[in-house]
C-alpha cells in the first residue's frame, strides 16, 4: 500500500475507455514510456467480450520496487468512458486522482470529497485542433497522455521518440500525435500544479528486460523449438499465439531461395480438427502444436486420450480463461488444471509445463516440443489470459544456437535394417518409453498400425487382459521417468524448515513474491516454491515434507492444484491450505497476504483456546 512519501514511481493508473475507440495505442504509449524511463511497469488490459462500444480498462502499475503483480488498489483514474463513470469514480482510493474529459461537465452527485478531480476538455481540445472526426477521436486519447506527462512529470522526449518509432512508415501521423501530446501537456501545465505528488522519475531498473506478451513469446518458442505445423481454431485468449506464430514464420521461416514456406498454419474448422491435425502431423514426424483455451480442451478430450494411449506427441498451449463453460472469456483464471492433467476418459495423465513469464512461455513451449517427442505424449503449456494477452516485463529471450532438438526415440531405416524384429510398444530401455518409426522409413521393416485400442508390444490388436495390463503399467513407468525430466521448481524465500511454506505457479508468481515481502514486514517469514510442471519432480515432495503447513495459492475455486498435489504425492490434505482467488482478475498481493494472515490468526486463536 503506497503512502505519500513513496508515490514516486509507485502507483497504479487506470484508463477507462470504450473499446473500439483506438485507446489501446495511446495507453500502450503511456506504458512504453514508463518502461523507457527505466521504471518497472506492468500494464493489464481488462476488456469485454465484444468488439466495440463497451467499457474497457487498462491498468498500469508503476513500481520502483519492481513489483509486477496486480496491486488491487487504484491511485489514479483516467476516465474517458461516460458509461462507466460512476464505477470509475468509486474505484479510486481515497486521496487519489480522477482525470476526466470535462468537455461535458461531471454531474455533481457523482463527485467524491476524498479524491482529486482533474477535468480536461479533451474532446473540445481535439475538435479545436483537428478536423477529421476519426482523427479527433484518436488524438483525444493522445491528449490525455500528454496531460499525464505533465501531471506525472514524464519525459516528453521519450514519448515523442515512441511516437516517431511507431509511425516510422506513416510519417504524416507524427506531427498530429506530437501536437496532441503538447496540447495535453500544456493544458495541464497551465491549469494544474504539476507535477503531482504521484509522479515518475527516470531510473535504470529495467536491465535486459523487454515488454512482451506471453502469447507472442509462446509463438516464438514454437518457432525456435522447431514446430513446423500449427493447427488451431480461434478462441480468446489463445488466438494471438496463432497469429504471432504465422507472422513470425513469415519473417523467419521462408526458404531464402524459393520464398517457399517452411511451415504450415491451418485454421481448422474446430478444436477437434485442430488437435487431430496436430496428432496426424506428429505421427508423421513433424513437430506440431495447437493453442486453445478451456472450451477447446474440452472438445479435444477424446483425441487427447488417443494421443496418450497410442503414444503420439502433441503440444497444446492452453491459455486459460474464466470458466466453466463459455464463462468469462475475457477474464483470467487457472482453472483448467484438472481438466488438462487428467483429460479424457479412462486412466490418463498428461504432462503440463507452467510458465510464469513470457520468457518462460518462450522456453517452455520450445521445451514442450522436446518433451512431447521424448515421451510420445501430450504436453500442455498452461498459460493464462493474464500472461498471454498482457505485456509483461520479462528477461530478453535467449536461444543457444548449438542446441539441438530432442526428437526422442525414433528408429531410422538403418536401425531397422540391423534389427531382428521391431516392436512398437516394447520397453527396450526399461524406462517405459518405446521406440517409434515414421511412416515411409523402410520398405519392409518398421511399419505398424497405430490405434487407440489395446494392443500388444508389437502393436497387434489384442483383447487379452495381461497384454493390456503390461501396456498401461508401462505407461505408468513412463510417467515415473518423466518426473526427472521436468523443469525443477523454483525455490524462493527463506529456508525455514518445519514451518510455513507457500506453493504457487504461473501468473501468481509476482503477486506471491510481493505478498511474501508484505508478510515479512508483518514478521511472518515464509518459505516458497514455485511449481513449473506436472508431474511434480522430487523437490516438490520434499518441500511439502519439510514444512508443517503449506499454503497453495491458486486462481480457481476448487483448489485444483492442491488436488493434484494430494493425489500425486500422497500428501495429507490437512497440511495444504488453499488460498484461492477466482473473480477473473489477476490475483493481487494484498489478497494473498490477507488470507494467509487470517488463517494464521484463526489458528493462533484456536491453539490459544486449547
Amino acid at each position: 500500500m503506497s503512502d505519500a512519501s513513496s508515490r514516486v514511481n509507485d502507483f497504479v493508473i487506470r484508463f477507462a475507455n470504450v473499446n473500439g475507440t483506438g485507446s489501446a495505442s495511446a495507453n500502450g504509449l503511456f506504458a512504453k514510456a514508463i518502461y523507457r524511463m527505466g521504471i518497472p511497469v506492468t500494464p493489464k488490459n481488462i476488456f469485454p467480450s465484444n468488439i466495440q462500444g463497451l467499457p474497457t480498462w487498462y491498468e498500469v502499475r508503476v513500481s520502483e520496487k519492481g513489483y509486477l503483480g496486480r496491486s488491487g488498489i487504484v491511485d489514479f483514474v483516467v476516465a474517458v468512458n461516460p458509461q462507466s463513470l460512476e464505477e470509475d469514480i468509486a474505484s479510486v482510493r481515497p486521496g487519489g486522482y480522477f482525470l476526466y474529459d470535462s468537455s461535458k461537465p461531471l454531474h455533481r452527485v457523482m463527485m467524491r470529497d476524498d479524491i482529486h478531480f482533474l477535468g480536461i476538455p479533451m474532446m473540445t481540445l481535439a475538435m479545436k485542433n483537428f478536423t477529421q472526426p476519426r482523427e479527433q477521436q484518436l488524438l483525444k486519447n493522445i491528449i490525455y497522455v500528454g496531460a499525464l506527462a505533465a501531471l506525472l512529470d514524464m519525459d516528453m522526449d521519450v514519448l515523442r521518440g515512441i511516437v516517431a518509432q511507431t509511425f516510422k512508415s506513416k510519417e504524416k501521423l507524427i506531427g498530429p500525435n506530437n501536437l496532441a501530446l503538447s496540447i495535453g501537456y500544456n493544458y495541464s501545465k497551465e491549469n494544474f500544479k504539476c507535477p503531482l505528488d504521484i509522479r515518475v522519475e527516470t531510473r535504470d531498473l529495467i536491465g535486459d528486460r523487454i515488454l512482451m506478451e506471453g502469447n507472442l513469446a509462446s509463438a516464438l518458442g514454437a518457432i525456435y523449438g522447431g514446430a513446423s505445423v500449427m493447427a488451431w481454431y480461434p478462441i480468446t485468449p489463445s488466438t494471438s499465439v496463432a497469429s504471432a506464430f504465422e507472422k513470425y514464420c513469415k519473417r523467419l521461416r521462408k526458404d531464402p531461395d524459393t520464398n517457399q514456406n517452411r511451415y504450415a498454419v491451418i485454421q481448422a474448422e474446430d478444436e477437434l480438427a485442430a488437435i487431430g491435425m496436430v496428432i496426424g502431423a506428429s505421427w508423421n514426424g513433424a513437430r506440431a502444436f495447437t493453442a486453445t483455451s478451456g472450451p477447446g480442451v474440452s472438445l479435444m478430450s477424446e483425441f487427447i486420450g488417443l494421443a496418450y494411449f497410442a503414444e503420439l506427441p502433441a503440444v497444446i498451449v492452453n491459455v486459460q480463461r474464466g470458466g466453466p463453460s463459455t464463462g468469462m472469456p475475457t477474464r483470467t483464471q487457472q482453472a483448467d488444471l484438472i481438466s488438462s492433467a487428467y483429460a479424457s476418459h479412462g486412466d490418463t495423465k498428461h504432462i503440463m509445463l507452467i510458465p510464469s513469464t513470457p520468457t518462460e512461455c518462450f522456453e517452455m513451449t520450445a521445451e514442450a516440443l522436446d518433451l512431447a517427442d521424448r515421451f510420445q505424449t501430450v504436453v500442455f503449456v498452461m498459460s493464462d489470459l493474464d500472461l498471454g494477452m498482457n505485456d509483461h516485463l520479462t528477461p530478453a529471450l535467449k536461444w543457444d544456437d548449438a542446441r539441438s532438438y530432442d526428437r526422442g526415440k525414433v528408429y531410422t531405416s538403418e536401425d531397422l535394417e540391423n534389427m531382428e524384429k521391431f516392436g512398437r510398444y516394447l520397453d527396450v530401455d526399461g524406462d517405459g518409453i518405446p521406440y517409434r518409426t515414421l511412416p515411409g522409413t523402410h520398405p519392409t521393416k518398421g511399419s505398424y498400425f497405430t490405434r487407440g485400442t489395446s494392443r500388444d508390444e508389437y502393436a497387434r490388436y489384442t483383447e487379452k487382459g495381461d497384454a493390456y495390463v503390461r501396456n498401461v503399467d508401462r505407461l505408468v513407468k513412463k510417467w515415473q521417468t518423466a518426473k526427472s525430466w521436468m523443469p525443477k521448481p523454483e525455490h524462493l524465500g527463506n529456508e525455514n524448515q518445519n514451518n510455513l511454506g507457500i506453493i504457487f505457479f504461473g501468473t501468481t508468481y509476482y503477486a506471491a513474491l510481493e505478498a511474501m515481502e508484505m508478510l515479512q514486514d508483518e514478521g511472518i517469514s515464509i518459505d516458497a516454491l514455485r511449481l513449473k510442471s506436472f508431474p511434480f519432480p522430487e523437490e516438490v515432495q520434499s518441500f511439502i515434507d519439510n514444512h508443517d503447513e503449506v499454503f497453495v495459492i491458486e486462481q480457481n475455486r476448487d483448489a485444483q492444484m492442491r488436488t493434484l498435489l494430494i493425489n500425486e504425492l500422497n500428501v495429507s490434505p490437512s497440511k495444504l491450505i488453499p488460498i484461492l482467488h477466482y473473480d477473473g482478475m489477476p490475483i493481487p498481493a494484498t489478497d494473498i497476504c490477507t488470507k494467509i494472515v487470517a488463517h494464521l490468526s484463526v489458528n493462533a486463536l484456536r491453539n490459544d483456546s486449547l
Partner: protein
Amino acid sequence: MSYVKPVFSHPELPANKVGYRKRDYEGAISTLCAGCGHDSISGAIVQACYELSIEPHRLAKLSGIGCSSKTPTYFLSNSHGFNTVHGRMPSVATGATMANKDLLYMGVSGDGDSASIGMGQFVHVIRRNLNMVYIVMNNGCYGLTKGQDSATADFGSISKGGSQNHFHPIDLVGMALELRASFVARSFSGDKKQLVPLIKLALSHPGFAFIDVLSPCVTFNNNVGSTKSYEYIRDHMEYPAPPDYVPKAKEITVDYEAGSGTTVTLHDGSTLRLDKLAGDHDPTDHLAALRRHHEAVANGEILTGLFYMNQESQTLHQLFNTIETPLNALTERELMPGQTALEKINQSFR
C-alpha cells in the same frame, strides 16, 4: 453362416515395376464377416496399388472407427496405418499430409464415420482439397455397433431390427460435388472391373479424390426393403463414365470412336481415357456432373463411375506454398532462426 472368407492370395502374379508381387500388398487376415463388401474393396485397393507399382511403404493408410475402418489392417501390411477415432480421420490425414507431402495417403471410412459423426471433417477436408484418396465403404448402416441406420440409409428402408428409416439419405457424392471436390466417383464393392481403375485414377489424382463405394453389410443390411442390399444395387446401377486406366508403358489400343472421349494426362504421366458415350457425361464439366447427379437422385437411379475430376485444382501444399522438402525432414538448420534474429526481436520489444 456358410460364406467363405475371401483370401487375397492368388496364383502368383509377376512382380510389378518396383519389384513387388501382389502378396506384398496384402494385409492381415480379415476379421470381418464372411461376404462383407468391405473385404472386396480391400481386395480392389490391393490390386490397384499392385498395378500402379506403388511402393507399399510410401503409402500411409488412415481410417476412423467401424468395420470399414478396420480394413486398413487387411491390406498393405508394409504401409504405416492409423486407426484414429470415430469420424475424425480427415483431420489426422490433414496433419499427416502437411508433415510429409511425399507419401501417398489412403483414407478409408464408413458411412457412419463420414456422414454422421464425421460430417464436419468430411466437408472441410474436401474444402481444403487435401491430396489424398478418400474411400467411404458405404453400407447404409452401422456395422460394428450392430446395424443401426446410418445417415446414408435410404428413406423407408427397413433395418435388421425391423424399424423403418424416417429420413432422406445424405448423398455423399452430392455433397462432394456441391463442395467442389476435385475428384468425385462412386462404385460398388462387387464391381472390381470398375472399382480398381477408379482407385488407380484416384491415387494418381493430385488433390482430394473421393470414392463412395456401395458395400453391402451382409449381416445387418442385406434385407429386403434396404436399397443397399446386393440385389438392389445390382438392379439399379447405372454407369455415367466408366474409366479405363492404361499405364503409360502400354499403348492405348482400345477403340473408342474419335471425338467421343476425353484423354486426361495423369499426375504420374500415364493417361486416362474416359468414355463419354456411356452416359454421355464429360467428367470435367462440373455443372453437368451436378445435373446428372441430381436427376439420377430424382429418378431413383444409382449412378456409378467418375462424376467429376478437376486436375487443375490446387492442393493444400500448393495453396500454402510450402517448401519442396517434406516438413518432417527439416532440421534445426532450417527451422531454428538463431540467436541473432531473436535479439532483433527482443530489440523491437524494448
